[in-house]
């Protein structure tokens, strides 16, 4: 026969809280196991008794038990726990015994030893309790902090959505808001992982945030082609600049933003081109590149650590699978606590017969 049903599971079964398959298992086991049906009956009877359906006996019995219990509980105790051993050994019976002096002495010694032992155990338990209480407090505090940051992220997302709906935003601003929302979400997710052992943490809210970020991203994709024309030219003069390797012969050595079209000529066999990064100063921790087609469909993304790019203008990123047409290249600078849009460039890919 299967192992007996655990108490937790049995209680869940009684409350109708088990999933169907598990419920079936429990039913099957119960039909075969007397011990578990007995326990189930006891549980049922105890529930009924707790609800008041119980035959009370003599009050003296109840009072006697309380008197004895109250003596053993800490509120009656000064510094160290009582010698509970004395209660356990049942004093009346002890008194009834005729003890020789030697056994009495031995017993006293044993009792003394036992009381010292209980005191040590009690002290250890008390320390453990203090430790646990402190841990609980810390957890509650951290949980509250996580809740606050979640709420903040939500507020910012809501604000971003509201302002998007009411006023025509520049794509740049939209990007910044999205980046901020993503950052908040990442932080919230991290917190939620840290506290996932706490059943009270609302992972549902993280999920909701994820959905919202996805919405916002979808919105960005649909709005990007229209908005880019109306948007402010993106200032890429500060910070790193980007060039297309092998394309430097065109009118500008660096990629031009603000809606200008950068021509990319590649051999028709190659289907790839290379972006070189000129890192003058202020390198980011990491760079993220994203190539999208006219419809906003992401074709390729790549990340490069800033350190790998620094001082080596030749480090490059290759993009494969290119047909002639219009594309958009985004470059973001990533720091652990923020994401900055560095440039958005329109590219026109032209192929020429291989020389």
């Amino acid at each position: 026969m299967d192992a007996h049903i655990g108490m937790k599971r049995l209680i869940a079964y009684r409350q109708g809280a088990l999933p169907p398959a598990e419920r079936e298992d429990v039913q099957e086991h119960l039909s075969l196991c007397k011990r578990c049906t007995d326990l189930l009956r006891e549980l049922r009877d105890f529930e009924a008794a707790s609800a008041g359906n119980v035959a009370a006996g003599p009050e003296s019995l109840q009072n006697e038990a309380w008197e004895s219990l109250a003596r053993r509980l800490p509120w009656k105790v000064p510094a160290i726990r009582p010698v509970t051993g004395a209660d356990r050994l049942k004093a009346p019976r002890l008194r009834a015994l005729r003890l020789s002096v030697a056994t009495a002495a031995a017993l006293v010694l044993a009792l003394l030893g036992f009381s010292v032992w209980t005191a040590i155990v009690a002290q250890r338990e008390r320390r453990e309790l203090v430790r646990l209480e402190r841990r609980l407090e810390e957890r509650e505090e951290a949980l509250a902090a996580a809740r606050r940051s979640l709420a903040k992220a939500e507020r910012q997302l809501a604000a971003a959505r509201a302002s998007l709906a009411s006023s025509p935003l520049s794509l740049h601003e939209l990007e910044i808001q999205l980046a901020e929302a993503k950052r908040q979400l990442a932080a919230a997710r991290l917190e939620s992982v840290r506290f996932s052992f706490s059943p009270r943490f609302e992972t549902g809210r993280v999920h909701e945030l994820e959905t919202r970020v996805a919405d916002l991203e979808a919105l960005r994709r649909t709005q990007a082609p229209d908005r880019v024309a109306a948007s402010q030219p993106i200032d890429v003069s500060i910070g790193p600049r980007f060039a297309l390797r092998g394309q430097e012969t065109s009118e500008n050595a660096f990629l031009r933003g603000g809606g200008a079209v950068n021509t990319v000529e590649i051999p028709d066999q190659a289907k790839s081109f290379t972006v070189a990064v000129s890192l003058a100063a202020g390198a980011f921790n990491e760079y993220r590149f994203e190539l999208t087609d006219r419809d906003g469909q992401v074709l390729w993304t790549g990340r490069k650590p800033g350190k790998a790019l620094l001082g080596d203008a030749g480090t490059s990123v290759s993009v494969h699978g290119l047909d002639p047409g219009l594309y958009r290249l985004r470059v973001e600078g990533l720091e652990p606590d923020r994401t900055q849009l560095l440039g958005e460039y329109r590219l026109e890919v032209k192929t020429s017969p291989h020389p």
Partner: protein
Amino acid sequence: MGQQGDSIEEIFQRLRHGTGREESFRLLFNRFYWPLFRFFEHRRFSTEECQDLIQETFLRVYRGIETFRGEARCEHWLFRIAANTASKAVRHRAAAKRAGRDVPLENDDPEGAPTAGGSPLAAAAPAPLERLLGKEVREQLSRAIDGLPAQMRRCVRLRVFREMDYDEIADVLQISPSTVKVQLFKARKRLQMELGEALAGFDF
């Protein structure tokens, strides 16, 4: 019971916040003393042992009150503590017995035979299986029951081997008594068809 107006949850709330601890704990004690007493008594502990075990249970409750966060129902939490306390006492008793010490316990029955006094359903229950059927037929019956559809065989097992009435089967399996009735009716037909003469004179 119930002369105190506070709900168990309110008492627990106050205990956790440490306000009026002793009074609150007394209320809790009064509320659960007799349910616990009857529970231990049902497990065949003597009155004196019941008193000890109740105290032990409440000591554990007192120590654990900080950790009880209200995910479970209070009475379920108490029941778990009480059942663990009882099991521990039984283990302790067994160990003491092995050590050859004098264990002043009455009613010591490790098999956990049915409660003294029997259930109120005993009168309606059929006569023991052994008296009605030979060993061979009993085994045949057992196999036939195992071959029945899930719900049906569970009902039949509880009825035939555990001699439960419809309501009790329904309570154990958490289904309605009418379902039990229907399942048993169908099972009777199927078993009669399968075993025929062998089952003559046996009904459940």
